[in-house]
């Protein structure tokens, strides 16, 4: 998946970004050591986040991750440290937890796309290091200007790519449904979000993994130099310009067909495993249907824990809604599209990969 030249460029960019930032703001290694404090069992000090990605500016804090073999870590919350007018944030992780997480990354990245999504969506609840910090560790630069855990980027990048592609796909589906439901403003929102997610997915495909949405667009522009000849890159960039224009006007979003075409192209280029490309069904949890009649033509749908409810707009039957091909969305009536959109928002319905 990765070209070695690109791989080396990523590493060089990361270290240069860190060195430039520390130099510009006069932060010496001694100051970092003072912030970190004494830990004889410290294995690695990693500079992470905006510093590494070349996105730090004058208000950025200096994000540090400490990898230690000391079992004295009592809290996994980040600590704020203020020194010489600068703001540092430190957080410690056990080196054995890192090893466990890297094994898990390796395992999940070998799953089918469907299983991968299922495993990764529960990551923060099941794994010892949250997604955000896992990305920061893998991309982190140590004080010897090395990226000690960068060997795990192919696994992380594959997982990230599929995860973001799935978000993109959900947005495409919701944009089409919103148009059919005559929710034109929400359609514009789904298109903008979908394009940001596909930018993230494409960048991850090439090994550039970012955990913060605020950076997607700026890094996308920055990556022109790598992808300028790639038709998919041009297609996404052109759709983004149109999406932003639509957002600022009263016009209807006119690029939803192009978005669907982009979705089809991305399946090819990003090599996402969807068995039947025209049949990517929406499925409804059957238990929810017709369980709580409300008033005529309406059901009250209540989830397992009983604390969330949604009123469906009309009666639904399992046959009507159980499996709806993506390509059929354009033909849905306004009422049907609205109901499905509501069910997706309330997590009663789900779009599978």
């Amino acid at each position, binding site marked *: 998946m990765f070209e070695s030249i690109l791989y080396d460029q990523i590493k060089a960019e990361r270290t240069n970004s860190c060195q430039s930032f520390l130099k510009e703001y006069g932060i010496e290694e001694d100051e970092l050591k003072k912030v970190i404090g004494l830990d004889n069992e410290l294995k690695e000090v990693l500079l992470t986040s905006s510093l590494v990605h070349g996105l730090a500016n004058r*208000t950025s804090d200096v994000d540090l991750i400490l990898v230690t073999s000391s079992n004295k870590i009592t809290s*996994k919350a980040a600590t704020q440290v203020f020194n010489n007018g600068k703001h540092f944030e430190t957080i410690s992780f056990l080196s054995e937890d890192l090893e466990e997480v890297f094994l898990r990354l390796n395992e999940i990245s070998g799953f089918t796309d469907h299983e991968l999504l299922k495993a990764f969506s529960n990551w923060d609840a099941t794994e010892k290091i949250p997604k955000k910090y896992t990305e920061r560790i893998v991309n982190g630069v140590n004080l010897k200007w090395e990226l000690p855990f960068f060997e795990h980027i192919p696994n992380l990048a594959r997982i990230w790519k599929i995860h973001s592609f799935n978000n993109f796909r959900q947005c495409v589906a919701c944009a089409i449904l919103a148009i059919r439901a005559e929710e034109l403003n929400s359609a514009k929102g789904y298109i903008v979000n979908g394009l940001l997610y596909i930018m993230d997915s494409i960048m991850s495909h090439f090994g550039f993994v970012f955990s913060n949405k605020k950076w997607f667009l700026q890094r996308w*522009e920055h990556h022109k130099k790598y992808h300028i000849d790639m038709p998919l890159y041009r297609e996404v960039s052109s759709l983004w310009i149109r999406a932003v224009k639509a957002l600022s006007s009263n016009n209807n979003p006119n690029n939803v067909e192009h978005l669907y075409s982009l979705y089809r192209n991305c399946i090819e280029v990003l090599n996402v495993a969807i068995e039947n490309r025209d049949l990517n069904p929406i499925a409804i949890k059957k238990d929810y249907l017709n369980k709580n009649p409300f008033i005529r033509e309406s059901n009250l749908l209540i989830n397992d824990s009983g604390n969330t409810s949604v009123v469906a707009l009309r009666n639904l039957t399992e046959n009507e809604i159980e499996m709806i091909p993506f390509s059929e969305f354009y033909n849905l009536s306004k009422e049907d599209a609205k109901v499905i959109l509501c069910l997706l*928002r309330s997590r009663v319905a789900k779009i599978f990969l």
Partner: protein
Amino acid sequence: MITNLNTSIKFFPNINSGVPSRSKESIKNLITGAFLLSTEGRALFEDFEGVEISQPETMYVLKIKLIEFLFEMEMILNDSEVDQMHYFPLCLEYGMPDVLKTEPERITKIFGLDCADQTDIEQIAYLWNRIISDFPGNIPNPLQNDQQGEFLQCLRNWSKLCKRNQIDDSFLIPLFKAL
């Protein structure tokens, strides 16, 4: 770029209306809202302050993130939940009546999304100051060294408030973990 758009907008109209809530959940919701304003909200505004002229793309996405953040506040205040992917679209279509009293159609203009290369922070600073000042009470800033004590005092107040009202304050733990 302070425009006439701003004159009629009101933040947190329901909280400030004096209409009481009948649910104890509203205590948890208010505490969670204040916590998020002082942590995620402050951090987001700090991001805005740091954006340079050479980073118009970041500024644009930050504006979307600010709308998403406020929509999350909306969900918290009215005790609802939806996946983050829907925040921005729902806000554009239906607005966020518990957070901002305005027509949904005006949101893109109010938050400056009608200009892709706009890096002028004046309008965002105005909105942020209004958000902070319209929320009842003084929202602490834990990102400032000299306000750590005030933030801790808030946490103590919230813990006492929960105990007095027989509310389990463990709901604050995931908020801390997410920081």
